[in-house]
């Protein structure tokens, strides 16, 4: 089934859906412009706008459900910037965008609430909430815009918010560097997206999703592929996919709620949104661009998982896992209509269980004096029972423990990948096995085993304002997957936005791939138990084999970037500086020095002796008269 037509809408809650973006934007504006005067209530205002936006989102969702499925793609016109040249700006309310809206505002609100407790002792808490609100507004604009330019504005907005929040503790040089790195790597991807939008405009003479959908038939295959690959480059940057993955691990320098909201649940999934949104036109099944998406997805899901196995920093291990899970989503999004629903369903459940685990990690760090090294944790399950229980639910959900969220959504991706291409499917199964290992390692090192705490650590359970979001997120991690996947409920819901595959998949609890996945995950978990649960964990990391070093160094991603781009870039800069100093400056300075030197000699003529002036006047007059005679006699 093809996606439904986009129709114009007015009235009702959908008519004022701009409130979704305006509310958090207003919050950010008040908190940033109000300055220190808003310090006292800043965090409450930040939470209020996020929650209000969530309420509007729910109302919009309910009104959308009231329509016939074929009429569930509504565009709300907002403003016509340059009539006749650029498409008017509008908001696209359809099942895909509303799914994102609910995830962003729902999980976003919980993380806002959690941050009240987590940032309680930070003098800049108000600024933190301002940036969080800014992020929510930009992210909502990204998913709600009905054209590529609006999407691009939101895309840059979340990039800015991400930069500001990674570098929130900018007094730490590592945080400032990580923020710059994230910004620069994202710039590469954004460059691709910008060029893609330029080509879309020249090819279709429109940038709106509706316009591209209706006028797509007469575009050449070459430009479609070019647009697809450039959009993929943009998606790789924002979603930390190979080869632009290097920024995500460093981005963990930001406060943990930021890692949960931006670098796990929402912003990094923008690439998946972009591919899904543009899927029908630029990533049709079997096209070069779609194949590239699946390859990027599989490569990243393996790379992220391998990185996750060796990290001792709890947040970096989770970041590797995020990369890997987004790789799964990319893989599914590249498959086509059979995969879109699984990609978005996994994105939503991942948003819940990964945010749950990041916030859990934040709770642990909060208790352990901001220690992030898992080798200095151990045995925390007794002192932090709620954090432990919610983390365990997130953990079981991500490794695909039967009947929890991740089980259904990841299995859906693996099954549809199997059907699409067996090699990709088996690689995804392998990735799931590695997931079982590294997540178990993380849990065993943190919550089980002997205490390896620093002497001054006195862990305690976090306050209720931090544990309640954990409980709600873990509840979502339990039930959401089954609810969305069973009976193809989510697939039929999304169908008006992304279309349906020719034959609907059905869920088999005992398929071959599913059983092999479970066996591999169990094997990975068992291996982790013997190595890290039952055995001793040394407090200082052992040197390990070259494979361990390979994973610890992020598969030498930074080294490759350095050798391929940074060093040649520096040479180029030095060359340019040399040319500028010696070539351009030499020419200009030489000319100036020449004129100066000549003048210095010439001014010696001004001796101050009147008689010599008189002589020169006399000689000059004689020459003039002589010349006059000569010319007169010719």
């Amino acid at each position, binding site marked *: 089934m093809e996606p439904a037509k986009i129709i114009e809408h007015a009235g009702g809650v959908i008519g004022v859906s701009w409130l979704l973006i305006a509310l958090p934007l207003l919050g950010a504006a008040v908190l940033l412009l109000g300055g220190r005067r808003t310090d006292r209530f800043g965090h409450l205002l930040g939470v209020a706008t996020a929650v209000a936006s969530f309420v509007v989102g729910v109302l919009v969702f309910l009104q959308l459900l009231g329509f016939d499925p074929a009429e569930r793609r509504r565009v709300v016109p907002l403003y016509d910037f340059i009539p006749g040249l650029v498409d008017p700006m509008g908001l696209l309310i359809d099942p895909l965008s509303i799914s994102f809206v609910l995830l962003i505002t729902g999980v976003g609100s919980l993380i806002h609430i959690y941050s009240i407790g987590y940032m309680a002792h930070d003098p800049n808490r108000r600024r933190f909430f301002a940036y969080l609100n800014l992020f929510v507004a930009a992210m909502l604009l990204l998913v709600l815009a009905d054209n590529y330019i609006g999407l691009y504005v939101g895309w840059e907005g979340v990039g800015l918010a991400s930069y500001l929040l990674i570098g929130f503790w900018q007094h730490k040089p590592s945080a400032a560097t990580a923020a710059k790195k994230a910004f620069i790597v994202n710039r590469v991807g954004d460059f691709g997206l910008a060029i893609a939008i330029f080509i879309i405009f020249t090819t279709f003479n429109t940038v709106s999703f509706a316009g591209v959908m209706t006028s797509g038939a007469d575009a050449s295959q070459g430009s479609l592929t070019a647009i697809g690959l450039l959009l993929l480059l943009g998606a790789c940057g924002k979603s930390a996919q190979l080869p632009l993955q290097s920024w995500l691990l460093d981005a963990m320098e930001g406060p943990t709620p930021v890692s949960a909201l931006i670098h796990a649940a929402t912003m990094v999934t923008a690439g998946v949104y972009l591919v899904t949104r543009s899927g029908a036109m630029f990533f049709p099944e079997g096209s070069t661009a779609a194949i590239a998406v699946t390859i990027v997805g599989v490569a990243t899901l393996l790379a992220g998982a391998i990185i996750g196995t060796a990290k001792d920093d709890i947040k970096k291990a989770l970041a590797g896992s995020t990369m890997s899970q987004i790789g799964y989503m990319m893989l599914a999004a590249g498959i086509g209509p059979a995969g879109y629903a699984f990609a978005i369903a996994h994105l939503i459940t991942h948003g819940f269980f990964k945010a749950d685990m990041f916030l859990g990690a934040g709770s642990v760090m909060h208790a352990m004096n901001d220690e992030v090294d898992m080798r200095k944790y151990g045995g925390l399950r007794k002192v932090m029972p709620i954090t432990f229980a919610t983390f365990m639910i997130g953990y079981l959900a991500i490794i695909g423990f039967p009947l929890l969220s991740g089980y259904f959504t990841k299995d859906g991706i693996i099954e549809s990948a199997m059907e699409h291409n067996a090699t990709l499917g088996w690689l995804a199964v392998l990735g799931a096995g590695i997931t079982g290992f590294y997540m178990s390692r993380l849990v065993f090192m943190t919550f089980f085993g002997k205490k390896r705490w620093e002497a001054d650590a006195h862990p305690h359970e976090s306050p209720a304002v931090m544990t309640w979001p954990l409980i709600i997120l873990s509840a979502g991690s339990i039930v959401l997957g089954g609810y969305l996947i069973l009976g193809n409920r989510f697939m039929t819901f999304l169908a008006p936005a992304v279309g349906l595959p020719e034959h609907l998949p059905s869920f088999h609890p005992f398929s071959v791939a599913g059983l092999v996945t479970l066996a591999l995950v169990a094997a990975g978990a068992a291996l982790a138990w013997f190595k890290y649960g039952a055995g001793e964990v040394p407090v200082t990391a052992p040197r390990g084999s070259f494979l361990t070093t390979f994973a610890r160094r992020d598969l030498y991603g930074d080294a490759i970037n350095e050798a391929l781009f940074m060093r040649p870039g520096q040479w180029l800069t030095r060359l340019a500086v040399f040319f500028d100093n010696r070539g351009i400056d030499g020419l200009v300075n030489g000319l100036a020095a020449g004129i100066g030197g000549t003048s210095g000699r010439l*001014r*010696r*003529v*001004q*001796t*101050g*002796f*009147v*008689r010599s002036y*008189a*002589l020169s006047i*006399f000689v000059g007059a004689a020459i003039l008269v002589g010349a006059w005679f000569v010319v007169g006699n010719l």
Partner: protein
Amino acid sequence: MTTHYLVLSALLFVIGGVGVLVRRNAIVVFMCVELMLNACNLAFVTFARQNGNLDGQIIAFFVMIVAAAEVVIGLAIIVTIFRTRRSASVDDVNLLKY
């Protein structure tokens, strides 16, 4: 006849010019300038007489007026310089230079 007057005029002009170039005393230089001016006047008057019109004589009058005005200002400057520097040598007045 005209030739004699013109030769005299040229001689006077050359004497004046050489005086301006070689003498150091400002008063003498000044007098040499006057000599050159009057050599010119002589030439003008000679041509006026030869051509039978008054143009040259009128110009000679203008030159005299200008010379008179110049003498007033020039002598004042020379006197002032002499008062401050105790010297009327044109070579001593050489502050305005490179």
